[in-house]
């Protein structure tokens, strides 16, 4: 099983894809098993490793990086289209 995803902090609810992925591919994360991705995911982008409810924190580096704008299912691409971020 080729490792192609990384969970940077054990408390994170998103992993990072280490290669370009297509919907239906398996994201294999060392120590965390495998997640079937539901969207096309570009390399370096985030994938939900658990269901994230609308309004709850998206956690990467062990910290909240944004809030989910909609319910995000395990395996979904997590990016600006489904996150509420502060305007800089």
């Amino acid at each position: 099983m080729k490792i192609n995803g990384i969970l940077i902090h054990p408390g994170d609810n998103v992993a990072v894809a280490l290669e370009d992925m297509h919907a239906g591919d398996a994201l294999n994360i060392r120590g965390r098993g495998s997640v079937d991705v539901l969207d096309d995911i570009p390399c370096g982008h985030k994938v939900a490793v658990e269901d994230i409810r609308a309004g709850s924190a998206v956690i990467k580096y062990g910290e909240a990086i944004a809030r989910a704008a909609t319910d995000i299912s395990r395996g979904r691409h997590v990016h600006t289209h489904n996150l509420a971020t502060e305007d800089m």
Partner: protein
Amino acid sequence: MGYMRPDGTVGIRNHVVVIPTVACVNGVARLVERAVPRAVALLHGHGCGRAMEIGMHQDTLAGIALNPNVAGAVLIGLGCETVSARVVAEKVRQAGRPVEVFMVQEEGGSLLTARKASDAASAMVEACSRMERTECPLASITLGLECGGSDAFSGISANPAVGIVADRIVDAGGTAVVSETTEMIGTSHILSRRAVDKETAGRIVRIIDDAHRRTKEILGPLASLVIAPGNMDGGMSSIQEKSLGCICKAGSRPISEVVGYGARPTRRGLVVMDGPGYDMESLAGLASAGCQLILFTTGRGTPAGFPVVPVIKIASSGRLFEAMPDDMDIDAGGVLEGHTLDSVADAITLMALDVMDGKPTKAEINCQGGIVCLYALTPSF
């Protein structure tokens, strides 16, 4: 592992430095370096014509002269500069480090000054050549943390791996210093929560707010390119995510103190130094703060080192490691192939221990020390 200094610090290098306090006498410092090749001239572009930075530049030059890796300093002044060589020399002398000062306007011009300063530098090189390394605990290390020329992988591979090494140094009783306040914008609520006390938390919020305001003032509409996620295509979704990708190189331990640019920490543990994101100015600040060793992550690749502080360059990908083999010390790209962050942290730790014992880094081997770039907040007059 290191050379004991009179102030109780431990150097992992044993340099004699020649410091011009004003750029007008850079040429004299260079003549000294030519006459005494084992002395290191720390050329820079400042020393006069600025009002607000006089104290900061005096303290920073004194801080670099007092870096544990420096055995002794020869200061070259002109005589009419605002960053006074005598003031800097006095700070160095009070800390017990060997120092000599020569003023070009008083010694008979450039060549005579260079001759006298060369004699002093030569005597210092001879004296420090008799020093021997002794065993020292890791607790005596102050580790500088730097990232520059980052790419989409920096926050995934190199920075988190360096963060693990920073945690190890802190856990061993040492100190790790993270700077580049511009790259903390958006995370003051996260970082202040990690502060050991209320005062430190307040300072964290203040310096990040100031950096945010200043960046917007200086850059205007361009600010979003610098402080907002520059490249959404790379997968960054928020300013918090982008900044966390930078500061994860500082690991996860509590923040014990916030110090100003180039100031020496008074507490051990993880320390935040308020400073610019420009690598070259940041490196000078870390050297002045007393870092004996700097871990520098890069994604695009940079050869930059610092004249008296070994800089270990950590490539965020195997592609970069292979593209700039003479400049990269460690390949963190294994993380992208499924290796653990711990395995890369182990490789960095082993290299760091070797460098503490004298092994040269790529930047040292290739003489990529460059000139010293001092941070300035106001224009010159």
